[in-house]
């Protein structure tokens, strides 16, 4: 049983890391600002909670697990809000989500 | 692994030099303040690296551990961080006033206006 929990927590942490890498690749490779916000928010919603869940399994039923649970709740509240604030600021600044821009500056519709 | 014996100190010096270069080569005053902060953080890294003890743990007394890292550098750097932000705040206030007086925050244009007086 402890071996199973150990394996599960390792799997969760590795999956979380993989999501982080995916989010990072998306951040660099996607063509347009609003899709890049989406890629960054993958890190917030999958990478961090998976890693924290893995850590919670590692620390069993102690105070540390409760603190980690609070962390996850806080992250779920604040990270999407940050993405929202970013998108709102971009809209306010005049970026048009309808047009796709390539990184080298050419516009495609 | 003799290279990694001093890796921390070498990188702290590299960071300090990057901060110093930012301060002396860039003319924008806000950039200079950022360079100052980089320099300060590099000094913190140097001090904390000096205080690390191999196989030591956080200097909070607990029955499970015997070897603790040296707490003295931590105290010194805590003070230094707070003093650093105080310095940054006053420096940025000065930048705002310079902007209001000269209309620019680029150092060479400020000097030009001064020389023209």
């Amino acid at each position: 049983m402890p071996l199973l929990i150990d394996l599960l927590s390792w799997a969760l942490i590795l999956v979380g890391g993989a999501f982080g890498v995916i989010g990072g690749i998306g951040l660099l490779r996607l063509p347009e600002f609003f899709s890049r916000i989406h890629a960054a928010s993958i890190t917030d919603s999958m990478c961090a909670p998976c890693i924290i869940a893995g850590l919670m399994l590692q620390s069993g039923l102690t105070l540390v697990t409760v603190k980690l649970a609070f962390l996850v709740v806080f992250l779920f509240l604040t990270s999407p809000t940050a993405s929202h604030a970013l998108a709102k600021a971009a809209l306010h600044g005049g970026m048009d989500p309808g047009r796709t821009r390539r990184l080298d500056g050419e516009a495609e519709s | 692994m003799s290279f990694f014996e001093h890796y921390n100190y070498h990188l702290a010096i590299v960071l300090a030099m990057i901060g110093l270069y930012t301060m002396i080569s860039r003319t924008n005053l806000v950039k200079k303040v950022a360079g100052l902060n980089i320099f300060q953080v590099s000094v913190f890294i140097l001090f904390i690296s000096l205080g690390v003890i191999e196989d030591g743990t956080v200097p909070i007394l607990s029955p499970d551990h015997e070897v603790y890292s040296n707490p003295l550098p931590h105290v010194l750097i805590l003070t230094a961080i707070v003093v650093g932000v105080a310095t940054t705040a006053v420096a940025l206030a000065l930048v705002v006033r310079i902007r209001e007086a000269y209309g620019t925050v680029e150092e060479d244009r400020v000097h030009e206006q001064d020389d023209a007086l």
Partner: protein
Amino acid sequence: MDTVVDILLLAFLAICAISILRLRDLFAMTMMFGLFSLISAGLFTTMDAPDVAFTEAAVGAGISTILILATLAQTSRREQATPARSKLVPLAVVWVTGAVLIYGTADLPAFGDPDAPVHNHVGPHYIQESGKEIGIPNVVASVLASYRGYDTLGEVVVVFAAVVGVMSLLGLRRRPPGLRPARGKPDPNDVLKVIATMVVPVILLFALYVQFHGEYSPGGGFQAGVIFAAAIILYALVFGLDKARQVIPPKVLNRLPAAGVLIYGGVGVVTLLLGGNFLEYYALAEDAKTAQHMGILFIEIGVGVTVASVMLLIYFIFSERGRGKRPDEGNGDGDGDGDGDGALSRDEGGTA
């Protein structure tokens, strides 16, 4: 494994610092600056220094970044280019200095060496005696507040001096609040307001926890003060400066930094009057450990009050000064979006 994390984090820090150097879009530079502080906080954590990491994250990634943003809102957003010729002398100076310093580190003890001279003098004394003389688990707090109490008094006075400096330079409110026209359209800030309403009380509670639990876990007056200020600054960013200034009335807020320093110095004067030396906590009570606890508690409260009110005051002063000002765009490049709200432009950040 520790070494690998250490190596990677330091390499990231160097890359981050180089990007701060080269970015000419100053808003992007500010974000990299926040990232730099955060990575250094992570580095401090892996080097067994959570108190320092806590303070660096709160102060560097929080307050310093906000202050730079507030300054950028009143000055230009882009930096003008530096001609290559004027980079030669600084480059030479920096290379020579760096080489000399690296040569100088050859005699330093290896990283983590337990027999280094720095670990043989006062450090072990603090670790061994702190439990018996003062009785709180966090050795850093006991050294900060008791063994090196004078230094911390000096630090609090420096923070106070900073707010005096910023106040003299930039002043504070000259016209009364409430002169802005009322908004008729539905508030586009709804999501931010809901989340801020949920999160601000939690942050304030956490600040109190850090303040009073700082003897048993990483924390203490400085971190608690900064977190408290961060909560009110979040409120100010979402709900507007006027409402935030009503949270603590200006008459009270302007006097709080001095009150904190007075509390700290007052503890010292009280110990003098009770027959001990300045800041010798043993004079406060019969039992040595109780006396130390009381002394540390009071001075940490003084520190927390001063730091919170100073950070808050400095933010309010910067924001007041920047009200109604428009940043220009430096040398005419940029987005021409002169409404000073820091929104992104189509020009997505250039490098030198």
